[in-house]
Structures are given as structure tokens and as C-alpha cells.
């Protein structure tokens, strides 16, 4: 999955109607007309939303008997979760190092000293 794909996914889900469609599709496949029922919009508008979700790879309309069903592609969500989980894991690694730094920090009475100073350039860690 490329960053581009991920962008399309996030953008597609930025819209409340599309998020609602996705939430309802999570309960199972349905038809476009069923999917359109709760919304006060034309079928054409519903198709427009569906196209955005399809382009993002979030839903598909597998070929079959008419009316074709709309299906949620859960694989994309797994990939998204994977990306976010990787980001989270990097943060957790960082915070474990911070745990160690905090544990090694001297007594709380030295706390707060120096932090307002301009340390200037050239410090090395």
C-alpha cells in the first residue's frame, strides 16, 4: 500500500455520509438502493459517494446478478491499521527510551533548573 492509497482512504473517510455507509456495510453486503434508504439525497449522489469509496478501495461491487451488491473491503482497513500500528510502535520505542531517561534523572529537587536557558548551538546527544 502506498502513501497515495492511504491518502485516498483517509480522504474518503473524512466525509460523514461515507463513514456512515462504511459503518453500515460492516454489518454485511447490501444493495445500492438499500444503502441509499436513510439518506436524504438522490441516488445519483449516493453513487458519487460510492465511487469515492470504491476508488479508495474501501468498497467493491462484485459482478453478479442484478442488483449488484455493495461490499466492504476489510483488507484496506487492516492495511491502514498496520500503518498506524507501525507509527504507534515507533512512538512506543521512543517513549521507552524516555522511560529510561526519566529513571536516570536525578532527584526531583533539581527539577526545573536550567530549562529556561538558551542552550545555543552545537549540543550533541
Amino acid at each position, binding site marked *: 500500500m502506498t502513501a497515495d492509497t492511504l491518502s485516498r482512504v483517509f480522504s474518503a473517510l473524512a466525509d460523514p455520509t461515507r463513514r456512515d455507509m462504511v459503518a453500515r456495510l460492516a454489518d454485511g453486503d447490501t444493495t445500492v438502493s438499500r444503502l441509499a434508504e436513510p439518506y436524504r439525497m438522490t441516488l445519483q449522489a449516493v453513487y458519487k459517494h460510492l465511487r469515492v469509496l470504491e476508488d479508495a478501495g474501501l468498497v467493491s461491487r462484485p459482478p453478479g446478478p442484478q442488483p449488484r451488491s455493495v461490499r466492504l473491503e476489510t483488507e484496506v482497513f487492516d492495511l491502514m491499521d498496520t500503518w498506524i500500528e507501525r507509527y504507534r510502535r*515507533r512512538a512506543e520505542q521512543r517513549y521507552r527510551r524516555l*522511560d529510561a531517561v526519566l529513571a536516570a534523572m536525578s532527584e526531583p529537587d533539581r527539577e526545573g533548573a536550567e530549562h*529556561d536557558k538558551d542552550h545555543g548551538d552545537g549540543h550533541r546527544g
Partner: protein
Amino acid sequence: MTKITETAIEADPKLPVIRMTRDFAATPGQLFRAHTDPVLFAQWVGPSGMDTRIDHWDARTGGSWRYTAGSGGQEFAFRGCFHDVRPDRIVQTFTFEGDPDGVALETLWFEDLGDGYTRLRTQSLVDSFEGRDAWLASGMESGVNEGYAKLDRMLADGAV
């Protein structure tokens, strides 16, 4: 209060925002120091397997910062401004110089849990969903050079 000892993350679907929460066995003052003292900050900011060199550091309201993370001849530079620095909250900007047009607005809160623990909450607001994803992706690229077991597993997934 239940401790959040493993980083919790939330990617907002409505806004290009990433929020994280993590509790530390430290006072708010210690956590604040670990974020504002350049020597301490360089010890943990990472990425793992890289040395962090603080090029510039003025952790005061209106100040700015720049640091370089490097390993094996490759360097990644980051910079930003300290918009607001106070004991319970830091607001700063963050730019990866490899993507100079991208800028994140980061807010960090240090919340005293009262029993020797402090909760760190962070929020990163990026200027677009594309920006957030590029940011996630740029971390992946630098990860290639890290050689850590966890990252190797990530690479084995073939997503880079």
C-alpha cells in the same frame, strides 16, 4: 486511575490529526525537562539506532529548534518553532526538512496523575491527509536504515 503504560494512538478520520497518550513514572516537571533540555531530549527522541545531534535549541516561547538524526552517513534533519512553552503544555511546529513544505502543529500536555505518574498527551495536526500519510511514510523510509528487529519485521511485510 488505570495507567497507560503502552502508547495509545488515535488517527482522527475527520481531521488530519494523530493523538497519542502515554503515562510515565515521573513528575510533570521531569517530563517537561526531558522535552526541553537538549541533552536529555537527544537521548530519547530517536529514531532508534540513530544518533541525534541538536543543532539549535531555544526551548522558550518564541524560540526554535533543529536537530539531525543520522546513522551510516545518512542524515535526517528536523526543525520547528517553540510557539508556547509552559510547565503543563508545549505547543510547537515540526517540519521534516526532507519534506520542507510540510508542517505539523504539535501540542503536548503534561498531566499530573498525582501518584508519581504523569500523563503525556500529544496531538499532531498536519495540513492535509496527504501530509499525514507522507509523514507516516517518511518515518518508514528512515526506518529502513535502522536495522532493528522490529523494523526488520515491518520491512518483511513489504510495505516500504
